[in-house]
């Protein structure tokens, strides 16, 4: 892995981590309205997978979508402004955290319905296939979504039509407050790939190198016309389901143990320093730059105006002839 890629990975993972920690703080301070779901602890998955994509490729995301949006290349300023409900946000204050999107970089939206993005990604891949433009699509979704009908219908459709799409299941062990083992019929969601005649693989979702290696085979397959694949990235949701979740359903020790032993950023840092791939100066510099970047995003969000009430009546339909 070349140094540029490693630096890029680290910057993206830190950008997500600091963005999420800042959102956590600002939400608890009452500055951010709505419902917010944090991606802390799962950064390696979006970072590795999106580093395999071109800007013109598509992703669909989940209610826990900030990480995917950042990894696909969105601007944290406009993201933060959206979370604050401001006019300068990506959705002009109409979406918020659960509907963050940046179509300019192929990020087709976070989705408030679990499993809602799976068929949208298959459809974007179908459009690529029909138009012959070489773009591929990635759908990120959670372990909970793998129990929805959209998963079955979408994977079957993608398989019979050999669509250029990679399904990335982030198994963070928790469907809201229900543990994975109580809600899902299989030990590994990846085995479900066999039912759709597509390759399935399990990656250590907190090891960015492992996610990258397995996802690379799948994105390559999609680009070469080989059809869809299913990657299960085993990870762990460090924070509650949403900010403010009292988390009475799990023990604090379980979370602390994951943080201590299995934090994807910590694991990355240990490895790159140990193997001499990056220096601590490299990392510290990125830490500072990223902190600065996110704090200026907060300033931008706070300074930005709220939309006028009449803007609630815009953007429902576009005038005919505009397509």
């Amino acid at each position, binding site marked *: 892995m070349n140094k540029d890629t490693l630096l890029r990975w680290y910057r993206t993972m830190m950008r997500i981590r600091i963005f999420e920690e800042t959102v956590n703080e600002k939400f608890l301070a009452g500055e951010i309205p709505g419902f917010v779901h944090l991606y802390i602890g799962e950064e390696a998955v979006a970072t590795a997978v999106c580093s395999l994509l071109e800007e013109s490729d598509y992703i669909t995301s989940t209610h826990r979508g900030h990480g995917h949006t950042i990894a696909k290349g969105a601007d944290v300023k406009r993201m933060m402004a959206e979370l604050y409900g401001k006019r300068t946000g990506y959705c002009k204050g109409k979406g918020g955290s659960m509907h963050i999107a940046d179509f300019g970089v192929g990020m087709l939206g976070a989705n408030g319905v679990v499993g809602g993005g799976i068929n949208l990604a298959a459809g974007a891949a179908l459009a690529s296939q*029909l138009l012959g433009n070489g773009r591929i699509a990635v759908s990120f979704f959670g372990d909970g979504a793998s129990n929805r009908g959209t998963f079955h219908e979408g994977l079957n459709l993608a398989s019979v039509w050999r669509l250029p799409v990679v399904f990335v299941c982030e198994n963070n062990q928790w469907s809201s407050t229900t543990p994975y083992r109580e809600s899902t019929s299989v030990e590994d969601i990846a085995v479900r790939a066999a039912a759709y005649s597509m390759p399935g693989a399990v990656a250590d979702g907190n090891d960015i190198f492992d996610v990258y290696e397995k996802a690379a085979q799948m994105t390559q397959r999609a680009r070469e016309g080989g059809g869809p694949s299913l990657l299960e990235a085993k990870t762990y949701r460090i924070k509650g389901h949403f900010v403010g979740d009292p988390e009475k359903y799990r023990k604090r020790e379980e979370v602390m143990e994951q943080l201590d032993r299995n934090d994807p950023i910590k694991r990355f840092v240990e490895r790159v320093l140990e193997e001499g791939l990056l220096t601590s100066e490299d990392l510290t510099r990125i830490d500072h730059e990223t902190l600065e970047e996110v704090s200026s995003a907060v300033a931008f969000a706070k300074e930005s105006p709220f939309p006028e009430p009449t803007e609630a009546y815009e953007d429902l339909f576009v005038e005919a002839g505009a397509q």
Partner: protein
Amino acid sequence: MRNITFAEATLEAMREEMARDARVFVMGEDIARQGGIFGQFKGLPDAFGLERVRDTPISETAIVGAGIGAALGGTVPVIDMHFADFIGVAMDEILNQMAKIRYMFGGQANLPLVLRAPDGVTRSGAAQHSQSLEALFMHIPGLKVVAPSNPKDAKGLLKAAIRDPNPVIYFEHKDLFRQRGEVPDGEYVTPIGEASVVQEGGRLTVVSYSRMMTQVQAVCKQLGDEIAGQVELIDLRSIVPMDTETILASVRKTHRLLIVHEAVKRGGVGAEIAAVVAERTIEYLDAPIVRIGAKPFPVPFSPALEPAVIPQEREIVEAIRGLLGARI
């Protein structure tokens, strides 16, 4: 002018739009090999190939969800629901994705797609193959809804729907597919959002659409020129956006209003029209507004039972006679 069937008219629209715009494709259950249950897709694969005329798995959720994704990816999908009743399977895709995407993402993307939904009663289809569901979709902001009553509008509205950069649900009544009518030669589009005054008259406004429009016209014939001549007939054609100005102008002229649709009367399109008229021009009314719609029951199977739920011509005759005689 040519005399062709409703199904043929929609087929012409598909052919013309697919030839005009290479991004347009159509997918659904049994449309390529079978040509659609009502023959409404017959011959399209020969002209445009199986890539652009796609048979799908029986996966309404995936068909509609992938249609939305394909629209976001730069194509113009036409999605056939087989029967409007099956929309329930894809309801989340319509309610939470299709209707919301443009707005909740702040207008970042357009969603040019058409959902074709064959609806209404025909040949004792019973409870799960006979419904008229337009009111459900009228209630959800972010969707356009149309329902043509004749071959000419079927073609013009389908072309307009395909060209519209917003999601359009196109309800086509199953019993109308074989109905014949005059269709103009050459290119034309029927604008979405414009009602059609089919017949002018001075004493009673009748608003209808889809198959019930043809029933109202048949009733007017039966009643004879003297009575029918007093009726102003409006074919709504578009349910969202609704051409309320045409309805209001007519009611201000005739002072009486009858609304007729096949869908359930309770909470139906007629309720919306009645409310708009009451809100905006009640002082012009000389008689109570009358609505005719299905009774609030699932559509029963037996030919002996179905007419007890679905509006019949007799009801329309009585309502017209009653309104023309009635004064408040």
